[in-house]
């Protein structure tokens, strides 16, 4: 089986190289036949990589521990879904997954544009195949997933997978993340193709917007699922720690989001063309850079894979070549992408979108600087230092409110130059709602929360106000005309102007997420040692420690503690945090118990069972955390509304 995989990869490399040559020739000669040849090679490469993927899956499923990679990342005791997911549990397999998705995207791009954008397509294919070739070279020559044990060695079982990764969320989180990260290759390829071919009209960015939206949604889901996994598995009471790997997934999200906003300015006003191209280039480069960062050990990360110097230097070279090639093309074409008009007023929609872009880039700069601070500080002072979550949070609490404010203002303010009447009509009610919220918070919580929380929550109310106002006005305008009721009007609204009204739903999701994140200012935590029958109190809850018992032995053993949770005299739940020991992997894990409501989460970790029979618990009360996940769902629904194929516009 493994031979089929190894041969497929080598054939794919040959085909990709041939296709790349054909694509370049077709592009230079503007030759439609050779364009078709190049496009077909993409499909063949995809088929070959798919067969390599299937081969590796089968090796995992059939316990083929003669393969070094399979033995290092799975074991017989693991259930089938986890054995299969172990494919992306290590370096070589995750590169193969990346390649597979890249070639799937390339095939889809070729298919959707089989009758469109003919001048761009050879260059699109060339860029995508060049990327695929890089990964194929890595997989064939540097880190081969089909490498076998040396002759004479026999392995009957593998060494298992890190138990923290054996969790349902971990089956899909990497898939979502990779669907996002690899997908940005397509908009990048279109932007690059536009620059190389000089076809810088409207075709490339109309196409690119769609191709950006899709991976952007998956990247967002991937990031949120990563947070969810951290919250449910890592047992430290939080969901985001500004770890380099989290930052690596967040960094490309920022310019991609900025692009999705500024491309509207290009669409409506013919401005910001260079800027939009830069954002696309930046997004894809950051996808690659993030992958490099987390695999190279340049910055300490909990996700780092084992390192080979050759891999590190090759990958860094790849990132740099990608960035430099793109910037060079941009420089050569700079005359063809001048703005058609100038900014007329700072009080306009254009200006607010421009500001929004600056804030996204400022956040990016902050995350980039903070993540690479160990590298910079060592280069500048010789002393390797790092910044912690506190530093990121300081900046976040400065920039997030600014972004919220612009979320409220941007979609409502007039194009070109806003009049006083426009401002009054659009912002009186939302502003009043924001001020009322601040006052309400002041009465309810007083000095319990920081200035940041006041500002953030009030702005959340302001943004919700603008969104509701937009919907109400638009629905009313339709119902007033006659034969529609409010519900029909709403449906019609979403159908006819899905970009705008879907966009508002996305914003609503983001607001919910920020409401949830800001809830952390009210977090409480407690560490207590209890004997059976003892109680602890946190806020208006109390917990009674009942018993601890041994976990039934399986892939792991350990203990489970049971605590009765009450609010006042009312019993709510029995919480059962676990302390597990994974035998084969020789690794302990604390599985928290969570009692979750819309208002707050109660989160309990069994820290230790002590020798004297008592148990030590760490308890957190995390207000509003659920709104993050709810916001995530709303966010995805909104993005789907925006993306939904519109039959009349095709």
């Amino acid at each position, binding site marked *: 089986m493994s031979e089929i995989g190894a041969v497929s990869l080598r054939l794919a490399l040959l085909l990709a190289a041939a296709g790349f040559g054909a694509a370049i020739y077709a592009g230079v000669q503007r030759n439609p036949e050779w364009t078709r040849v190049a496009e077909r090679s993409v499909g063949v490469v995809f088929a070959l990589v798919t067969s390599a993927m299937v081969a590796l899956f089968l090796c995992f499923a059939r316990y083929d521990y003669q393969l070094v990679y399979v033995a290092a990342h799975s074991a017989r005791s693991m259930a089938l879904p986890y054995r299969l997911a172990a494919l992306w549990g290590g370096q070589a397999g995750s590169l193969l997954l990346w390649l597979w998705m890249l070639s799937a995207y390339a095939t889809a791009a070729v298919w959707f544009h089989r009758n469109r954008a003919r001048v761009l397509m050879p260059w699109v294919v060339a860029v995508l195949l060049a990327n695929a070739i890089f990964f194929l070279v890595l997989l064939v020559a540097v880190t081969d997933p089909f490498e076998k044990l040396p002759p004479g060695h026999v392995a009957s079982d593998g060494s298992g997978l890190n138990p923290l990764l054996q969790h349902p969320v971990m089956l899909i989180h990497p898939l979502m993340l990779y669907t996002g990260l690899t997908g940005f290759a397509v908009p990048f390829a279109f932007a690059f193709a536009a620059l190389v071919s000089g076809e810088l009209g409207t075709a490339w960015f109309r196409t690119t917007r769609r191709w950006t939206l899709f991976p952007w949604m998956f990247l967002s889901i991937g990031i949120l699922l990563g947070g969810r996994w951290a919250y449910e598995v890592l047992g430290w009471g939080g969901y985001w720690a500004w770890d380099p790997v989290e930052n690596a997934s967040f960094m490309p999200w920022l310019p991609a989001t900025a692009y999705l906003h500024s491309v509207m300015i290009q669409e409506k006003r013919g401005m910001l063309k260079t800027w939009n191209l830069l954002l696309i280039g930046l997004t894809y480069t950051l996808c690659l850079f993030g992958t490099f960062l987390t695999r190279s050990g340049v910055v300490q990360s909990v996700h780092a894979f084992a390192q080979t110097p050759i891999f590190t230097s090759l990958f860094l070279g790849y990132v740099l070549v990608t960035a430099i090639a793109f910037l060079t093309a941009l420089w050569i074409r700079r005359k063809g992408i001048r703005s058609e008009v*100038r900014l007329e007023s700072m009080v306009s929609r254009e200006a607010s979108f421009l500001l929004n872009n*600056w804030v996204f880039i400022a956040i990016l700069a*902050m995350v980039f600087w903070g993540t690479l601070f160990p590298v910079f500080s060592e280069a500048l002072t010789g002393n390797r230092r790092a*910044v912690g979550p506190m530093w990121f949070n300081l900046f976040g609490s400065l920039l997030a409110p600014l972004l919220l404010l612009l979320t409220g203002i941007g979609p409502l303010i007039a194009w070109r130059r806003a009049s006083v009447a426009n401002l009054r009509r659009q912002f009186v009610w939302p502003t009043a709602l924001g001020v009322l919220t601040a006052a309400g918070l002041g009465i309810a919580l007083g000095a319990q929360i920081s200035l940041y929380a006041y500002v953030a929550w009030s702005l959340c109310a302001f943004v919700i106000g603008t969104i509701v106002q937009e919907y109400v006005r638009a629905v009313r305008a339709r119902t007033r005309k006659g034969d529609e009721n409010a519900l029909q009007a709403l449906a019609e609204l979403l159908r006819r102007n899905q970009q705008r009204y879907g966009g508002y739903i996305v914003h609503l999701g983001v607001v919910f997420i920020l409401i949830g*994140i800001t809830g952390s200012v009210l977090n409480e*935590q407690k560490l207590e040692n209890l004997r059976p029958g003892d109680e602890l109190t946190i806020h208006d809850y109390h917990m009674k420690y009942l018993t601890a018992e041994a976990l039934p032995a399986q892939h792991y053993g350990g203990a489970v503690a049971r605590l009765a949770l009450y609010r006042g005299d009312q019993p709510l739940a029995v919480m059962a945090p676990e302390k597990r020991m994974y035998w084969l992997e020789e690794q302990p894990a604390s599985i928290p118990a969570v009692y979750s409501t819309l208002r707050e989460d109660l989160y309990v970790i069994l820290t230790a069972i002590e020798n004297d029979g008592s148990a030590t618990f760490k308890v957190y009360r995390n207000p509003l955390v659920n709104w993050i996940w709810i916001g995530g769902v709303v966010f995805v629904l909104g993005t789907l509304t925006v993306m939904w194929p519109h039959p009349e516009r095709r």
Partner: protein
Amino acid sequence: MSKGFQIAGGATLIALLLGWYAASNLQEGASFTYYKTLGEFAASPEAQSGIPARVHGYVVPESIQRDVEGQRVTFAVQATPPHAGGPSDVTMPVVFASLETPDMFKGGAEVVLEGRLARDGATSHFAADKLLAKCPSKFEGVEGATAAGGTARPPSTKG
């Protein structure tokens, strides 16, 4: 003044402000140094004067004692991995003032301690207020290893 200058000026101003903000916050303890090894620490000025430091070492097997009454854990660290063979050179007693030890914390584990050297008469111990533990690198991907060290994480994370 041309538009280009205005934009460049604005961008520079913002960059300067952010840079200043970053620099001013770095001095207030939002950043920290990477650790010193046990040997480096013993010879450093931090050890002499009790200045906060991060120290790296390995837990001496069977030295861990959980003091439930006193809400603390005492153990010793040594400079070399205990399973690497050969005698351990430098050791240092540690008092961790909490019962909240990370999952990976056990005899032989690789740890990073944050705290300071405290003297009690002729002897001294390291008073740790943070404790990070790493699992032996059995896995290629050591995902979550330090992350599971609960005490190393912030109590909250906001936007």
